[in-house]
């Protein structure tokens, strides 16, 4: 499970903007593995301390197996929350703006920074200034370019091409993708694993080219 959590943390980290310009070495001396360790320690501590007395403890996530039977999924949500929290921290945002991030399941956290993730309304501003509008347009252009690269990267795999096309047509759940293609749900999930690895390649290439562009300015 630890490798899976590490891969997941890196995948989320790559989607966030870091002052360090490195998805592994994060601000505040954190790294992807220190974030995974932190999440595990928080959840494991909560699990054995059974801290119902005296209200919620800081740095302890209380996992309720009844409510969230899938521990790995729960840990992934904790990792995502920690990374979002770090991305919106002053340490990271002092010199850069963090783009909006959408929640995967909308699960609010029980303790600590409830609602204080990058996907929440509190980060929204009443009106965007011209620089922000420009940055939004730039982010959309980069994502469109990334999708083109993903399509090119996946061109030799017919299954992946089919899945990307289905998603481009607005099919986003496994059952929707499954009915839009002739793949079953298990094959759709298998395709998602391959696509995620290809997406990582695309992100690495894009960050290299962005670095070169910035350096040549």
């Amino acid at each position, binding site marked *: 499970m630890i490798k899976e959590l590490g891969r997941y943390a890196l995948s989320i980290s790559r989607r966030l903007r870091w002052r360090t310009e490195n998805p592994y070495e994060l601000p505040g001396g954190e790294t992807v593995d220190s974030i995974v360790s932190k999440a595990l320690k928080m959840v494991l501590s909560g699990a054995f301390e059974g801290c119902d007395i005296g209200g919620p403890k800081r740095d302890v996530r209380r*996992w309720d197996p*009844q409510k969230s039977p899938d521990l790995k999924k729960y840990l992934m949500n904790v990792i995502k929350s920690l990374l979002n929290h770090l991305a919106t921290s002053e340490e990271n945002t002092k010199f850069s703006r963090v783009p909006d991030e959408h929640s995967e399941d909308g699960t609010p956290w029980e303790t600590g920074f409830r609602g204080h993730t990058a996907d929440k309304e509190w980060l929204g501003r009443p009106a965007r200034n011209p620089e922000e509008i420009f940055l939004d347009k730039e*982010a959309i252009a980069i994502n469109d370019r990334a999708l083109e690269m993903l399509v090119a990267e996946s061109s030799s795999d017919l299954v992946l091409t089919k899945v990307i096309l289905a998603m481009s047509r607005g099919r986003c759940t496994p059952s929707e993708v499954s009915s839009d293609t002739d793949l079953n749900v298990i094959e759709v999930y298998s395709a998602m694993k391959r696509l995620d690895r290809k997406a*990582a390649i695309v992100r690495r290439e894009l960050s290299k080219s962005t670095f070169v562009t910035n350096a040549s300015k």
Partner: protein
Amino acid sequence: MRSANIFHSISALSADAEWTNEELDGALLEEGIDPNVLVNRIMAEIEPVLQHTTVDLGSGFIASQVGGSLPLIDVLRNSTRLSLSAVAKALNVSSGFLMEIARHSKAIPESWRDELMARASRSLHIEADLIRQALLPAMSEGGVALGQISRSPDTITYRGILDRSGMATKEKQFWLNLASQQRSD
């Protein structure tokens, strides 16, 4: 769908799939991370906490609370290589509902078993017999898995299962109707 949303969905859905050790090693190595170094660093960090917990990071469940393996969950996960959340999504139920059914299979109406078998076969291509058998030991022996959770007799009803399932009212109603249809048959 916007490009950003496509990448977001890929990331979320790939996290719901079960990755093999080889796939994980490959993915991490591609990112320039040595999987063994990553595991060793994290294990060293969490070692002190691990000594005081019953969590089995291999299976992902707290042993003392879940009581070891549950045949239904094992069949569903081993047949699909998907996480419990992904399996539940594919069966259009909550993961809490699946866990409750796995723990208290004795309490569920036959119509629920049939519905589960049909959904598993339709959405996940799992043979109906596998699901039926996974639910049988607990029925005939008073619960192999249940015995590990509690020594007291299992008194939960199917309504109790629904109450603890975390499902929306509409879904709960569907399963209630299914149960009452069977009673009137």
